[in-house]
């Protein structure tokens, strides 16, 4: 329990003044503009949008500046901002098959239609610090190759004919759960689980995904496909009655393909885990797809033996704003609580000392 206490207003004001001063840093160094953050720290912006659950690169960049680069604080700011706005409605589901591909790789099919393109990736870099960046060198223009537009179907559509891979059910009449409108209830269906994972903490999901690979709920995953690029967001306003394009949204999608031995009802086939994240975040999309598959135990009659398979554990702890709130509330005044505990410990100690004394006397 924490109780209301008064006092400290001046200290708080001055602390915030000091924060603003420290945020700015030495005046001799140029101020950082949100535009610079948006375009040059784009992956930090992407993470804030994904976990802030709000697509708005300029806002996320400003939040990063305000938070002095503390991304969870920036995510908190973005989450708080969204609560100030009305919701116009729900968008049309994005068509990732029609994505303007900037990166697309598959670990399962070498020659997939549309090809494998690496795009702007850290993969195959040597992870050596590049001191040229400190010198402010402008990089040469990237190579260009003339290209004919080639369709890039999702890898999971390629095996369709044989039924070797699980088919998703598609029913647009089902109601879609929304954890921002109704508190999570367990068991939670896959729509709610995916929403929670999409805004979940990257580090937490990475660790859980990793744990499934190390044997805590093993799912035998293969990366069917990872793609990154822009799709057009669409929305049907009530007054218009047709879909209007809102603008392009950058997304990373991961299709994880997992082994499954089959059950009494289902023949052996590959099952799937799915990841979809705002911006360019392969690590998050892959982790999400691993955890999505691990959580599908009820569908496949699998025993829940590991943390990554336990939906209550995963969904209750994957939100870093929630987690921060509860962990950091410990620093709020608990003076009365602690006084009560102090009194209790003193009493227990005096009782203990009296018992020791009695034992000692009895022994003599």
């Amino acid at each position, binding site marked *: 329990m924490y109780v209301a206490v008064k006092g400290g207003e001046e200290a708080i004001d001055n602390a915030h003044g000091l924060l603003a001063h420290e945020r700015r840093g030495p005046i001799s160094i140029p101020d950082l503009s949100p535009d610079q953050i948006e375009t040059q720290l784009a992956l930090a912006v992407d993470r804030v949008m994904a976990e802030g659950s709000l697509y708005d690169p300029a806002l996320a960049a400003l939040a990063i500046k305000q938070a002095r680069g503390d991304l969870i604080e920036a995510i908190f700011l973005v989450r708080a901002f969204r609560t100030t706005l009305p919701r*116009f409605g729900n968008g049309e*589901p994005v068509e990732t098959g029609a994505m303007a591909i900037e990166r697309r790789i598959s670990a399962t099919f070498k020659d997939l239609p549309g090809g494998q393109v690496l795009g702007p990736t850290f993969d195959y870099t040597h992870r050596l610090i590049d001191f040229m960046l400190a010198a402010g060198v402008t990089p040469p223009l990237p190579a260009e190759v003339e290209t004919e537009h080639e369709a890039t179907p999702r890898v999971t559509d390629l095996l369709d004919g044989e039924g070797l891979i699980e088919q998703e059910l598609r029913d647009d009449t089902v109601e879609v759960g929304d954890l921002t409108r109704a508190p999570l209830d367990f068991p939670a269906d896959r729509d709610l689980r995916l929403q929670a994972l999409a805004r979940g903490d990257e580090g937490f999901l990475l660790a859980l995904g990793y744990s499934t690979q190390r044997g805590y709920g093993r799912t035998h995953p293969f990366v069917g496909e990872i793609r990154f690029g822009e799709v057009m967001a669409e929305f049907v306003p009530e007054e218009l009655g047709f879909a209007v394009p809102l603008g392009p949204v950058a997304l990373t999608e991961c299709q994880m393909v997992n082994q499954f031995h089959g059950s009494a009802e289902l023949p052996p086939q590959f099952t799937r885990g799915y990841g979809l994240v705002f911006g360019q975040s392969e690590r998050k999309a892959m982790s999400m797809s691993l955890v999505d598959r691990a959580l599908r135990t009820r569908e496949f009659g699998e025993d829940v033996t590991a943390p990554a398979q336990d939906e209550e554990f995963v969904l209750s702890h994957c939100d870093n704003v929630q987690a921060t709130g509860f962990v950091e509330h410990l620093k709020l005044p608990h003076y009365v609580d602690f006084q009560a505990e102090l009194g209790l410990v003193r009493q227990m100690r005096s009782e203990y000392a009296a018992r020791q004394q009695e034992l000692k006397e009895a022994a003599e």
Partner: protein
Amino acid sequence: MAACAGASPAELVQALAGLGDVPAATDLRGTEQGLVMLRGRMGGDGNPFNLGEATVTRAAIRLPDGRTGFAYQLGRDAAKARTAAILDALWQGPERAAVEAALAPIRDRIAGEAAAKARRVAATRVNFFTMVRGED
């Protein structure tokens, strides 16, 4: 509408200015910021789920002749959304060709940037080749 959504604020102002004298529009509904919940599909092609929200600004205007125009755009730029709504209203009538012409440079710029990006991405395409094993 896609061209308006992808345009920069300055481009839209320029497009509207290029149409000459435009009658003053009145707000059908105040231009406002809000949210649209973006959705994905399970596995890319299955049942929908809520992915996360996006900031969206909407504008609805009426021209003196009664034509109405609407705009819904990602982001928080009220002036840009209102300009797009005026262009939308003008497009509903005799100015359609002029609006299309005014938006053409924006479309060209967006298409040009997309093509340049596609060429850069294409240069990172992997061409696998299999090493032939010498058997004899």
